[in-house]
Each structure stands twice: as C-alpha cells, then as structure tokens.
C-alpha cells in the first residue's frame, strides 16, 4: 500500500515537472470574428462545424442564435459577432465548446488555425480597451497579426 502511494507521488511529481515544462506553451485555436482575430485555449474546443441547423428560441437576447441538436443533446449557440456588438457579414462557422462540463457553441466568421502560444507572450489588455470576454492579447509567434485571448468560461458566467 505504502509503495503504491509512493509510486503515485512520484507520478504526480513527474506530471508536475512535465507541466512546468509545458506550462509556458499552450495550444490555442485562432478564429476570426468581424475582422478581429481571437484565440481560445483548445482545452475548451470539442468540435467545429462549418454549417449548422440552428433553431431559434424566442424571448432570449438577440445574440443567442438558438439551439442545435448535437447527437441528441440540445446545445445553446451564441452568435459571438452579435455578442460583441458587430453585425454578422458572412456565413458562420460554429465552434462547440465544453466549458467545465457545459456544452455551448459560438458562431464566428471563420476558423483560422491552431498555434502554440507561450504564456510569457501574453500581455494584458490596455484598460481603455478592456472587454469582459477578453483576458489578454498577444502577437502570433512568427507572424505580424495580433490576437485577443477569449476567456471561454466568461461565456457561461454571462447568463448566470
């Protein structure tokens, strides 16, 4: 028994050191919405659809696009563009997120690519430009474009 515990401790230590090593870099999904690039941790992303059949729900704010049937589960879809106050111009892509067990989808203009972003590269947003959904910004490694980091759990908090 004690041996087992010891083994587990060792495992945890390994995991921690691995994490420390990786902690600096994390995978992010880059997407475009109203000509602004956003990045979101891939930990939250479960699926991406290029077209979805959305059922509108009456009596909810306009930025709630409706609900979709995801393999028998009813998942709410937020139009991210409307949420940020922009009028959608293109046919959307839907990114389905799993945020701490809650499924929710967002509509964006296009999904760009995945990148590794190092933690040290993330900078705070200037106070004047702060947005409740954005918790940092950074320049894409090797590129010139700048992305806003989306705080996914804030999407859920919004309705509470």
């Amino acid at each position, binding site marked *: 028994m004690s041996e087992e515990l010891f083994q587990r401790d060792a495992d945890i230590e390994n995991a921690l050191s691995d994490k420390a090593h990786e902690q600096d870099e994390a995978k992010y999904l880059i997407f475009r919405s109203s000509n602004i690039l956003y990045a979101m941790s891939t930990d939250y992303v479960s699926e991406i659809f290029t077209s979805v059949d959305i059922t509108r729900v009456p009596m909810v704010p306009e930025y709630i696009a409706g609900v979709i049937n995801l393999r028998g589960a*009813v998942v709410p879809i937020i139009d991210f563009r409307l949420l940020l106050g922009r009028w959608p111009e293109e046919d959307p892509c839907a990114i389905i997120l799993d945020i701490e067990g809650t499924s929710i989808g967002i509509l964006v203009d296009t999904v760009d690519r995945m990148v590794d972003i190092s933690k040290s590269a993330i900078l705070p947003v200037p106070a004047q430009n702060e947005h409740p959904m954005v918790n940092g910004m950074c320049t894409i490694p090797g590129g010139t474009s700048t992305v806003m980091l989306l705080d996914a759990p804030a999407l859920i908090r919004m309705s509470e």
Partner: protein
Amino acid sequence: MGMGNDMMEAYLFEMHSMLEQLDDLILSSEQAKTFSQEAVNEIFRIMHTIKGSSAMMEFNSLMTIAHRIEDMFFVIREKTMDAIPDNMRPELFDLIFESIDFFRSEIEKIENGEPPTNDIDTFLNKINTFANKISGEESEEAPAAEETAAPEETGAAASGELMAYGSADFPYGLQVFFDEGAGMENLRAMMLVNAVKDFVEETQYDFYPSDVQLNPETANFIVDNGFFLRFKTEGDRTEALSAVRETGSVREYQPFDYSAAAAAPVVEDAPAVEKDPVAEAAPVAPAVTEMPAQQSAAAQPSAKQQHVKESLISVSLSKLDALMAVVSEIVITEAQVTASPDLKGLKLDNFTKAARQLRSLTDNLQDVAMSLRMVPVSGTFQKMKRIVRDMSKKLDRETNLILEGEDTEVDKTIVDSISDPIMHIVRNSMDHGIEERKDDRIAAGKDPVGTIVLSARQTGSEVIIEIVDDGRGVDDQAVLNKAIRQGLATPGVEYAHKDILNFLLMPGFSTNTEVTEYSGRGVGMDVVKSNVENCGGTVSITSTLGKGMTTTLKIPLTMAIMDGMEVSVGESIFTVPISNIRQIFKASDMHIIQDETHGEMIKIVDNFYSIVRANRFYNIDNAAETFDDGVLLWVESGDNSFCLFVDKLIGEQQVVVKPFPEYINNFGIKNSGISGCTILGDGSISIILDVANIYTAQS
C-alpha cells in the same frame, strides 16, 4: 461459496418482487379482514419459493422463517380462514407484515454484503406461538386429530381409507395408482396434475399429497396409498378421467365421493378422518427440512415456472442513455440518407419503397427506445399504502389511502428522486393532518375514517403529484406563532395566508412539539422542498383550516414521452401538448371580436375566449397575419382556456420532452410559456409550449 453473481442477482430480484407481491396481497386481505383461499394459496406458494431459493443460496435465517410461515399457511389452507377467529386475525396480519419486514431487512443486508442475521429465535418463537394457537383451536374442536398425528408419522396413512384423503371443498375424489415399480411416483403424479390442467380449471381441483413436486418422500406414500385428485364437481372429475387414462404408467384408478364417504358409518376412525389433512401437515413438513439439498433442487424449477415477473431484467440507466443517443443518431442519419440532395431528380422506385420501410422501422425503434426509461409511479405509490397502514394502526387513526393516476409514466430517475419526498408528506398528513380522535372528525362533520389521496398526472412537460388529506388543515395562528418562536417571522408583521404556509417549507420548522416516530425528526418539509428542487421541481401547499391540506409537487420531466401537435409559426416549429388542446378550427377575420385595448376574442359555443397570436407573442417574422391564413388551437390548462393562433398544423407526434439547457433557461423563457424542447424525427428541434404559462404571461 462459488455462487454465481447472476444467481445472486436473480435471487435478489425474485425476492424483491415476491415481497412486493406479498405486501399487496396482505394489504388487500387486511382490508377484507380475511385471507381468501386464493390469497392463502398464493402466500403459501411465495413462502415456499422463498424457502426453496433461500435454502439454495444458503441463507438459513430466511429459509427457516419462510418455512415456519409456510407451515402455518399450510394449516390455514387446509382449515380455511374460518378456523381463525376474528380476534386473532389482526395478530396474523401483523405477523405476516413483520415477516415481510424481516425478509426485507435480511435482503438489504445481503445486498450490502453483510452476513444475514442468525438471531431469529425471538421472531421464530412468535411465529410458533401463533401457529400453536391456530392448531390449539383445532385440537379443542377435534382432540382426535393430535393423537392421530403421532402414528401418522411412521406410515403416512396406515389406514388407507379413501375418505381420509377427501376434502370437503373438493368432494369428488379420484384415487390413482401407478404401475408397480415405476419409480419416481411423485414426479409421475405431478405430470398427471399437469395433464389434468388441460381438462379442468386449476382452481377447480386439488391433489394430495399436495407437495408431490417438492418432496420426493411422497413417492412412498403414493406407492402405498395412491395419489389423490380431488374435484369440485363430478363433471370435472369425468373430464379429468381422459387425462388419467392418457397418462402412461397409471395402473388403476378409482373414483370416490367425499360426502358419501363421510356419511357412511363403515369407517372406523371417522371422527379423526375429517381433520386428517391437517395432521398430515406435521409429518410432511419436517421431512422437508431434513433434506434441504434435495428440496431446494426441487423448489427451484417450481419457482421459475410459477414466477410471473421472470421476464423482467434490470439494465443500467447509462446503457439506456447510450441506446437512446444511438437511436437518435440513426433517425437523423436515416433522414439524411433518404432525403439526400444527391437523389434529387432521380426516379428510384425500389429505393423509395425501401426508404419508406426503413422510416417506419426507425420510428418503431425510437418508440421502443423511448419507452424503456419510462416507469409508472405505481411502485412508489404502492409503498405508501404500507406506510399509511402501519401508521393508522400505530396512531390509531383509521385512514384510507386512495391512489390515482398510478400508471402515469415518468423517467426512472425522477421516480427515484420523488419517492422520499412523497413518503415524508404522507407521513406528515398522517401525523399532523388526520385528527387524533374520531370524535373530532365526526364533530367536524367528516367521515370518521380519514382519507389521503395521492395522485399523479402529467401536464405538458410536468408531472403533478398531489397529496391531499382531509384532516385538520393548517392553523395559521399556530404556524405563525411557531415561526416567530423560530425566528423565521417578525412579530407584529401581518402575514398573508400564503406566506404563512410558506413557513412550513422553511428549514428548521416543525409544528409538532414532540418528536414522533414517523415525522418531525427535526427535518421537515424543507427537506422535501430541497429534494424536489434538486430535480428542478417546485412544492406548494394549500390548506383550509378544518378541511385539510394539499401538497402539490410539480416535477419537470427530464425525459418524458408526450403526445404533441406540431405547429408552425413563421419558420419556427412548436409542439403543443395534445392534452391541452380542446379543439382545432379555422376562423375568418370577421368572426373576431376586438376589445378596446386591441385584444382579440372569439366566441366558441356560448363563451368568449381571448386569442393569443403566437407570432406576436414570440416576435416571429413571416408568419400568417390574417386569421384566414392560419388555424386556431383552442387550448386549456386547468381553469385557463384561450385560443392560440398559429400558421399551420404539421401533425401529431409522440415526442421526448427535453429541458432547455440551463444557459437558455436562465433567460426566464419558462415564464413565456416555453417549457422545453424536443428533437423531431428529422433531427430538427421543436419548442414545447406550456399553455398555462402563456396564459399567465398574456394576462
């Protein structure tokens, strides 16, 4: 012990269902204040099965108790209930209930992996004492019986007199002898009994020895004395003769009439004869315990053969969920295949035919899958019968429990979560509701016997469970005083009747000053409330002082099947519960009456009903604006009735009610009459409307 888990599971399942059956049986018998002969037979059979399978599983405590009760019922069966005086009957009922509880607690121990108790002597003594009392009654009537019992033990029936094996209930006897040296006479006898079944109804005859199937010892008896079939009517006996003749290995048979025999003075020990079957019970039963191995082996097939619920299996809920998910996928994929854009413009007769068949099969599949998770609330409701019964006795408040809507089906998880709250409320009604003294009830002009009505019904996406008692009702002043004492209410403030009732649901409130066995253990209705709220439901109480109290639980169906009418409004599709629809009709603009605030009404039969336009109510574009272009649904929920104007009817469909995700519900759409949604066959989502809430929101 090398016992398979499957076997254990089968055993536990069997025990549970048998105990439920027993509970039912004895509750109804208690009401009738007697056991019918059928009930006696049934109890005898159940005890016998419990004894057999418990012996096989080596649970000796269960086996011993079941055995004793079986013996007792053997006596009752032979003598009928008439032999038990009225004043002894309550004790008998209590004894059987106690034994059910004993079996239950033992089963619970086994389920939890604890060893069954060995300390059954007290209970055993109790049963023995009672059993002796029954037999004692008998010995007064016919002292000869006990004396004959002793010699009987040596040779089952030394006398060999036919009449000894007759029966007053089944006077037309038939003595059958099998071929000499045929062997296994008891099994042959059983086969003969089964063969007779084809000619004579089972209730119309019996046989002796009655335990041929289980007790190999009876073979010797049959060799010596023959096997006795006994019929209620002479006609049946004649019928049965053909069965007897057809059965191989029957050497000879001889009809005899019980009544005629009894009248005949030829028989030497006639006085003893009548009671003989009872005396027989004693020697036969010990033989059974002596050979537990053989007996259990024999008991097992009988259990399987007779058990009604054997075709049920238990499946874990997660498997059902997985099945449901796959089925929904199949339905959607099917629609994608058959309606594929690639097929446009092609003439595919065979494909279309096959696709149509596939469609109906997937529909079937979906129906079946949906129904799997649904269970009626009757199981939970039935348990309350026992609680009311026990409490009426203990508290000496005679009370009837009336069950309504027992077959309302709800999701399995919901059934489990409402069981405790219902039990608590029923106990509360018994404890605090129903008056302590019958005089009080009579003085109040009520039936001296209290009534509790437990009902379930489904409306839209909710199950409504009501517990109504006709007791004292809630004394507002007493509740308020208590609330003030508990610091829940502020002295001097005027509280409305409704607010006062709400105190009952607050934590730490218990109106009874004394803690009783059944309720008021410091926890109270607040626990009920939190339990029900945990599964998304609500609790409300209404009460009139002196008239009684009604507790209403409204529980949403996480997954329930409902008949819905699909309607379209603009591009949206809604489901209106069929149960809410009174009538569907077309109206023309000229039938519409306007009021001064631009509200619209229509006259149906002799009443005016207001009209709610779904498109305006929900701000939906591109929907029908003139009444000529749409249809009116006359809907009703409770006392609220109005007309809902929609574009088109799509059709009737059975749907699975799903709640909206919390994220969406947080916007308060329930208050606008949107109670949930459902996934239609083609994978699209339809919104389920709650007629009552539309009415409230509109007015």
